[in-house]
């Protein structure tokens, strides 16, 4: 049995019983274990994407056979894709704000908007990859193209997983299994989504814009 007059650091937080249950126990750090785990995961993801970005930077000028990604980039098209992903971060944070107010209908609207914007971004990436392959640049063409496809492909997989996660949250909400009391579920999903966005902010600048 837990004493209610614990020090202020002992804050009840979601954890051991799963995210979809209401927060029921205290943590030694005073913050939610689930949220802490997500931040630790995102910290480790920095190393993953750091490796992929560093590999691309190393190999970008080492292609023996063409074409290279740099010769084929369509900057206006990719800029629109970047804008779409950036705006999906805005809709995600508005979804979180809605559930924190207890407005479940608006939360679902924003979550679906975020998923649609994410799907638009992925469609753009599929179109870009298809165009590049038709132009003769496959993953095996040269080291530069290989590094490019692995980096942007990994990011695309992350966005796709995020879309699945967003739609799962909408489904759970419609079935009444996601309530305003469990807003931390949306917050944690949001952290993942925003991280995917910041990774793209870096990729867009380093891979596409810097000459």
């Amino acid at each position, binding site marked *: 049995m*837990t004493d209610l007059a614990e020090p202020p650091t002992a804050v009840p937080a979601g954890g051991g019983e799963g995210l979809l249950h209401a927060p029921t126990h205290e943590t030694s750090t005073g913050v939610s274990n689930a949220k802490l785990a997500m931040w630790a995961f995102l910290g480790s993801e*920095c190393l993953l994407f750091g490796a992929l970005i560093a590999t691309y930077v190393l190999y970008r000028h080492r292609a023996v056979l063409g074409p290279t990604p740099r010769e084929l980039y369509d900057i206006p098209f990719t800029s629109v894709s970047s804008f779409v992903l950036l705006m999906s971060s805005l809709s995600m*944070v508005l979804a979180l704000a809605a559930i924190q107010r207890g407005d479940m209908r608006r939360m679902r609207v924003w979550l679906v908007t975020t998923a649609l914007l994410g799907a638009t971004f992925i469609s753009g990436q599929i179109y870009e990859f298809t165009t590049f392959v038709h132009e003769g640049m496959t993953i095996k063409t040269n080291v530069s193209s290989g590094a490019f496809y692995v980096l942007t492909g990994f990011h695309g997989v992350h966005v796709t997983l995020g879309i699945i996660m967003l739609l799962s949250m909408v489904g759970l909400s419609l079935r009444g299994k996601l309530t305003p009391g469990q807003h931390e579920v949306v917050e944690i999903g949001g952290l993942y989504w925003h991280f995917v966005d910041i990774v793209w902010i870096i990729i867009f600048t380093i891979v596409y814009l810097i000459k």
Partner: protein
Amino acid sequence: MSTAVPTHEHEHGAHEHGATPDEPGAHAHPSDLQYIVIGLILAGLTAIEVGLYYLKGGAITNAALLLFMALKFLIVVGFFMHLRFDSPIFRRLFAMGLCMAIAVYTVVLLMFGFLNFK
């Protein structure tokens, strides 16, 4: 576990947006309008970045692009991910991974890129 600890569900579920969260070191989050303004700032920064791409500025343009990238990164992490408002422990945890990644891959790039180690 079903300990009889109050769940804080009321505070979590119904606190007005902008109210102070109950985590140690946490502060109030921005309002919807503030989020929209932040979104517009990010869109504006992206537009400037794309504009810079078409300038023939060399190193200065590249430095400006990196600066705008860092600014956008900090805005998203600070405001949308609430790192500016949440408990400092999250900030430290994320900064640890980020700094480790920057340090490790800077060394890798220096060794195999600029110094041309084989």
